[in-house]
């Protein structure tokens, strides 16, 4: 295992210092450090953050290896500064048994680019009817703690209540994809003036907000924790804010694309902008940024959703929902939160590393950069600007909505337990 001496790095944007990473941990912190045989990284001008943790990633394996594999997805994750990702359960077969989650977990270990924590399905086959064997997944080698039918909503109130209750036995959490199914039948884009004009079936904000409100009440009633996936509307932010004010154990995530892009992009009819929940209005974007800044929204999660080209190279209604996110997440957060002064780098570390690790009950990630802690560290250059090149992505898919767009910042290096997965902005192997 290599030893790395990182010189002149601004930990969480603070005063420059040196970091010595050895034996998988942060060995020393201070100025003027020396270490024989260490690889020296000149990090002047770079910010050090704890390795990022994504609570919401679609790695597509098993089943859709044409879109992404655990290996390709975790390569993209490493390039984005992530050292841990939670792989969503909507694979084929669905990750609703110990066997499937252990397979995904093992594929992550074998790839070695970042730690993969499988998310278990709440219900068998994501059908929303019977609970999957949540305990078996929790007790498996994959140690599942996050359960979600993401892609589908656990819409049955009784099933949701039971799931919230049941996972308490192993300190799990249910991550809800909040989408009232009847209100969103055939839905294509945010319901508003534009959906009416474009003739695309609307996905109304109330379909998200009604489920979040119900789930907050259920979680409070049974004394469970609830995590809300991809909050996309101003009204949802208000509901979560109110739940937190009441002291309920509710956490929420926002996706980078919902912090930056708006529903106006649907007017292109280019399904590269088709995502679920849909891009919303500029007022929603404002509210999401404010909610992330004040802590109402706990974390940023990518909802990285790879799709093969033919699923986007078609008419809007026929296209798949979802967009890539791992390699651009930190840049989008810089552009939308850091550069406008809404969040400092320690705030970014909280929302993209510490808090997601806490919610997912991941012990070895999201730790502070301190002596003796696991050496999961990302070095980031916030001063550069880059133009996104879809064809350069490590993902097998190309469905990034940012192709050709100039974004700030670049991940220079990512260390997973002291081993470089990314160095000089490129995969280490």
């Amino acid at each position: 295992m290599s030893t790395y001496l990182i010189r002149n790095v601004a930990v969480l944007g603070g005063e420059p210092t040196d970091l010595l990473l050895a034996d998988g941990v942060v060995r020393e912190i201070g100025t003027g450090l020396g270490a024989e045989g260490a690889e020296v990284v000149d990090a002047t001008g770079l910010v050090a953050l704890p390795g990022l943790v994504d609570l919401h990633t679609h790695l597509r394996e098993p089943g859709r290896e044409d879109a992404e594999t655990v290996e390709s997805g975790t390569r993209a994750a490493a390039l984005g500064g992530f050292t841990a990702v939670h792989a969503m359960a909507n694979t084929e077969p669905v990750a609703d048994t110990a066997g499937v989650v252990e397979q995904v977990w093992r594929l992550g270990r074998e790839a070695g680019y970042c730690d993969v924590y499988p998310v278990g399905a709440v219900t068998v086959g994501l059908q929303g009817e019977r609970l999957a064997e949540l305990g078996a997944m929790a007790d498996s080698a994959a140690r599942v703690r996050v359960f979600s039918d993401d892609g589908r909503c656990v819409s049955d109130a009784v099933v949701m209540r039971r799931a919230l209750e049941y996972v308490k036995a192993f300190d799990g959490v249910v991550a809800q994809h909040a989408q009232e199914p009847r209100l969103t039948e055939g839905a294509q884009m945010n319901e508003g003036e534009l959906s009416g004009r474009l003739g695309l079936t609307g996905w109304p904000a109330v379909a998200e907000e009604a489920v979040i409100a119900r789930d907050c009440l259920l979680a409070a009633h049974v004394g469970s924790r609830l995590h809300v996936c991809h909050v996309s509307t101003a009204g949802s932010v208000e509901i979560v804010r109110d739940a937190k004010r009441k002291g309920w154990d509710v956490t929420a995530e926002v996706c980078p694309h919902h912090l930056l892009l708006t529903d106006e992009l649907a007017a292109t009819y280019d399904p590269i902008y088709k995502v679920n929940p849909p891009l919303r209005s500029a007022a929603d974007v404002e509210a999401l940024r404010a909610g992330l800044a004040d802590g109402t929204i706990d974390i940023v999660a990518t909802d990285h959703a790879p799709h093969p080209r033919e699923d986007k190279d078609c008419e809007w209604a026929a296209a798949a929902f979802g967009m890539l996110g791992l390699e651009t997440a930190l840049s989008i957060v810089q552009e939308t939160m850091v550069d406008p002064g809404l969040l400092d780098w320690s705030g970014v570390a909280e929302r993209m590393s510490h808090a997601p690790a806490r919610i997912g009950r991941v012990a070895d990630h999201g730790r502070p950069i301190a002596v003796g802690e696991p050496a999961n560290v990302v070095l980031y250059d916030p001063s550069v600007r880059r133009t996104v090149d879809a064809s350069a992505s490590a993902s097998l898919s190309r469905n990034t909505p940012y192709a050709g767009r100039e974004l700030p910042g670049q991940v220079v290096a990512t260390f997973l337990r002291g081993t470089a997965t990314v160095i000089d902005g490129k995969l280490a192997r």
Partner: protein
Amino acid sequence: MKRHLLSAGDLSRDDAELVLATAEELRSLADRPIKKLPALRGRTVVNLFFEDSTRTRISFEAAAKRLSADVINFSAKGSSLSKGESLKDTALTLEAMGADAVVVRHGASGAPHRLAHSGWVRSSVVNAGDGTHEHPTQALLDAFTMWRHLARADGGGLDGRRVVIVGDVLHSRVARSNALLLRTLGAEVTLVAPPTLFPVGVEGWPVETSYDLDAALPKADVVMMLRVQRERMNASFFPTAREYSRRYGLDGRRMRALQDHTIVMHPGPMVRGMEITADVADSDRSVIVEQVTNGVAVRMAVLYLLLGGSQPAVGGEE
């Protein structure tokens, strides 16, 4: 005019009036023994229909043939939505065949827009109805029909004419295109529907809206009835067909509330007894059959103007 006709909103007032004037000249052709002009000789027009619509397809086909274009009918029923050949592959096929214009009807809103802007084809794209989005040539033929009956003698065209459009606005591409085009031409449009059949955000459209048909009728110069599918009642848009007809159907009693010069239109196909009664559809006020005749003339004008025929059609210009 732009290279494509995707939305009625693409047309400036000058564009729209040029289409109407050209259609007027071309329409006279229908009365001649030889109904054919050489304007688009050697050009290829493809009718690409992903949805069944015999009346629209034959209208475009007749229009193209009367301009001497070669016509290829491509009925691609079963789009990529139903796992057939994808829109992209179909488009690439047409491109390889060398189509000059593609007339496309598709069940997905925005499919013609996608075709025009994806780089898959170089030809002009004419939207012949896409999902619940638009149907611009229908709006043009409707405007043409109104213009022939109601244009002001002072050259003001449809300025200030009151058009009442009644029915399933939410799902109607005809309503969207008409609202945009009639506004461009200076008419005042009132949309009438039950609240469930208005799209969210209709307040932002350049139209008046009303839930009360009886209140809207007396001032109307044109009443256009939209088709209402009975299936909508199963989705709770309205309780029963009978109640719909009672509140929003045009029957003989309501027809008597109209001004003497007011015309009644319907884009077809009609559901007699649902949104319109037979006595109204067959009355002297009804211009429904004439709409069909005008459809051919308007589509001739559109194809001619988009393809910029190498010689004047009947004095038209690019």
